[in-house]
């Protein structure tokens, strides 16, 4: 039975894959490794805000343990702890509207570590802080906020987003189908000085890490971690491709936890192992014709960050024959690279070309491009109200979807980590009404 938070009636999700169920045990092991490193000082612990331009492949090649702000907050939320942590941060004057990932983690830092329920996810404090603007402006600003608190060595990479001018959309033959790609990043030419600038930032990062760790980067190891990261990305993207099958073999309940390995462990054998097992399971399900849910009627696309404290919503949807067959959020974390290329070139490419660094139009096109191959019936947006890059994107995408496909978008206000604003009854009512409408559309189409 799903666990419930007494105040807000939120639920955990039910996972279908065996390999996904095991992820939390990997996280526990990783925590132990961090705690040991903190005790004996054998490895540095780095907290990261804004992935991609801070490639964890480099950190693993240097035996530095990465910890992502977003992942920490998501786990706290899934464990129903984020609300308390957010309240601690807000009591220090931080605004209600601010990013709840940062407020969750800062609340943990400012007092949340002392509560007993944190046992098992009691992440040790950072030795260094690393940040970049690769997702949003708030990430590096949040890292600066933590720097003021911890006063530890801090590095911020500056990185340019893909300019709308570079989009082929500015050309006359603009058409999303021909130009966008699913999950493998922005594929159009990027100006050389953009790549050069990001390469400078990555070299700066390496110099910083060498300085604080007192160890030189082993470039042979970096090549290995880049190759492993790329191999894992291929496996993860194969899972995404397999989800095009009808019925869809795996839903968001399993995909969302699978984000973690690409986020923390890109470049480690462990990441490849996890994705390989998951891929094998998904492949087997496709071969057997097994779906993620017993009666697949509605195939949905999910945009935005899910409310981590209530992944049980996916179960609610499953009970109504609706399955999430694709989401944008997981595409953030993996990137296929060329192992024969210079690793810095590879990582600069990964940093620049991933979807949250593209122009808004390109990101919208990525969604449009999934409508047909994934046989989408509808699109649901988790409108993470504290997050500018999602809340500001959703009306844009809704406009495009309606215009190009006539597909209606359901926008649900549900913060990623703060259950206080979440209204379970209203969200479920709106889901019910939306599915009813999709059902009618299907019936009309059938006639």
């Amino acid at each position, binding site marked *: 039975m799903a666990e419930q938070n007494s105040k807000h009636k939120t639920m955990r999700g039910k996972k279908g894959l065996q390999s996904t169920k095991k992820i939390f045990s990997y996280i526990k092991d990783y925590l132990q490794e961090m705690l040991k490193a903190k005790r004996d000082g054998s490895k540095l612990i780095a907290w990261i805000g804004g992935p991609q331009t801070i490639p964890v492949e480099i950190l693993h090649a240097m035996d530095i343990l990465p910890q992502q702000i977003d992942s920490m907050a998501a786990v706290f939320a899934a464990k129903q702890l984020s609300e308390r942590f957010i309240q601690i941060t807000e009591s*220090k*004057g*931080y*605004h209600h*509207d*601010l*990013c709840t990932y940062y407020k969750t983690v800062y609340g943990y830092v400012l007092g949340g570590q002392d509560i007993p329920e944190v046992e098992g996810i009691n992440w040790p404090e950072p030795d260094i802080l690393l*940040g970049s*603007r690769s997702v*949003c*402006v*708030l990430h*590096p*600003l*949040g890292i*600066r*906020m933590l720097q*003021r608190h911890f006063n530890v060595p801090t590095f*911020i*990479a*500056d990185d*340019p*987003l893909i*300019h*709308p*001018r570079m989009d082929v959309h500015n050309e006359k033959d603009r058409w999303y189908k021909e130009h966008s790609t699913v999950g493998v990043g922005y594929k159009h030419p990027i100006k050389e*000085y*953009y790549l*050069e*600038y990001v390469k*400078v*930032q990555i070299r*700066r990062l390496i110099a910083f890490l060498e300085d604080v760790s007192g160890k030189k980067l082993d470039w042979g190891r970096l090549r290995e971690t880049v190759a492993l990261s790329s191999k894992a990305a291929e496996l993860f993207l194969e899972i995404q491709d397999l989800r095009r099958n009808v019925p869809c073999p795996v839903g968001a309940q399993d995909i969302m936890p699978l984000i973690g390995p690409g986020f923390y462990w890109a470049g480690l054998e462990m990441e490849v192992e996890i994705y390989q097992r998951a891929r094998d399971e998904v492949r087997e399900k496709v071969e057997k014709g097994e779906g993620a849910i017993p009666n697949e009627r509605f195939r949905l696309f999910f945009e935005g960050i899910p409310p981590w404290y209530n992944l049980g919503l996916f179960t609610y949807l499953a009970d109504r024959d609706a399955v999430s067959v694709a989401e944008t959020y997981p595409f953030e974390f993996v990137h296929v690279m060329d192992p024969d290329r210079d690793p810095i070139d590879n990582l600069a490419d990964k940093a620049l070309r991933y979807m949250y660094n593209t*122009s*808004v*139009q390109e990101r919208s096109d990525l969604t449009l491009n999934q409508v047909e191959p994934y046989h989408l019936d509808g699109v649901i947006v988790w*409108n993470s*109200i504290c997050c*500018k*890059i999602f*809340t*500001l*994107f*959703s*009306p*844009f995408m809704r*406009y495009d979807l309606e215009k190009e496909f006539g597909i209606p978008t359901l926008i649900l206000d549900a913060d990623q980590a703060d259950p206080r604003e979440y209204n379970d009854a209203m969200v479920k009512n709106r889901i019910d009404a939306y599915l009813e409408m999709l059902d009618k559309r299907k019936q009309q189409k059938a006639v």
Partner: protein
Amino acid sequence: MSLNLQTEYHPDPSKNPALADWKRNGGRAIGCLCAMVPVEIINAAGLFPLRLVGNRETVERSREYFSNYSCYFVQSILESALNGGCDLLDGVVFSYTCDCIRFLSAIWEKVVDLPYFYFLNNPHCGNAEGAETFFMEEMKNFVNSLEELSGGEISDESLLDSIQLYNRLRSCYQRIDELRIGAKISGSQAAELTLYGLMSPPSIAVERLTRIISEGDFTPPAEGPRVMALGGVHPDLDIFHLVESLGGNIIADDFCMVGRCAEDEIDITEDDLLFILSRFYLNQRTQCPCMTTEGRFQRRLDYIMKKIKLGSVDGVVFTIQRYCDPHQLDYPDLSAALADRGIPTLLVEVEQSIYSEPIKNRLEAFVEMLS
């Protein structure tokens, strides 16, 4: 004295007499959003660059395309454009200041029908290795784009003239700031003069402001609590007038459309003018809470403390736009730092209007406490 400049400019471009005059004479104009846009280049192309600062009109149509979980500042600009409020502009240049402006630029390109659109990709970490070169390259592309629009070359001479013209304008702003901090003119007068400068063709603004300053026909503010105001963009003088109506005076601020305009002039000692501009914008604008430059927070605090000392400030009011996360993120540590130095602070959250009863009541109590 009343400067009455409000009859000569307006935050909404369609109601801005300075813009209407310019257009009547066949000129072209470009809206700028926000302070990171190098206006010197636009002016050198023979175009009139004017800052977009939003307005207080009710937002309705923009809700169709834009989230209400964003600051009113950007929502009001989109609303104005959708209602024809930007029709006198030939285009708009967006810098990558914050994510609200980034997303505004994206939807703008799609639904606002103006001949020219540009997105200037500025670095956020001003002192990161490579940032100045990168921004210079971006400016080169910007120059090319403006040359295409204007149909003429932006020569080194015209760019140098433009930088020098804006230096004269900066010098006017500095003088206005000195008069204000010396309590020779009120906060609202200083803001009026500065906003006029941002929304008027620079050569006209320099001439007019120089004359006003040299005539010196100002009415000193009434004796009363001296307030410093911090925060984001205000489209008008409301906050200044409100504090004055309560018996106080905003003797200093760090608004990017008023106090921070009184910045250092651009040092033209190197040959490459675009590199000079790149360095200037990345270094001068580091107080903006959107910047991630090392030492930025301390620099902002130092600036505030300097003004507090110079103006014998009694208390600080934070006026923060709702959903403006860079300012919201600075607030707790900044207010704590001010409290540590014994300076009283007040936070007011701003959306459409500053004249709501709760804001007025809180400001009234604060000004009374400082009396």
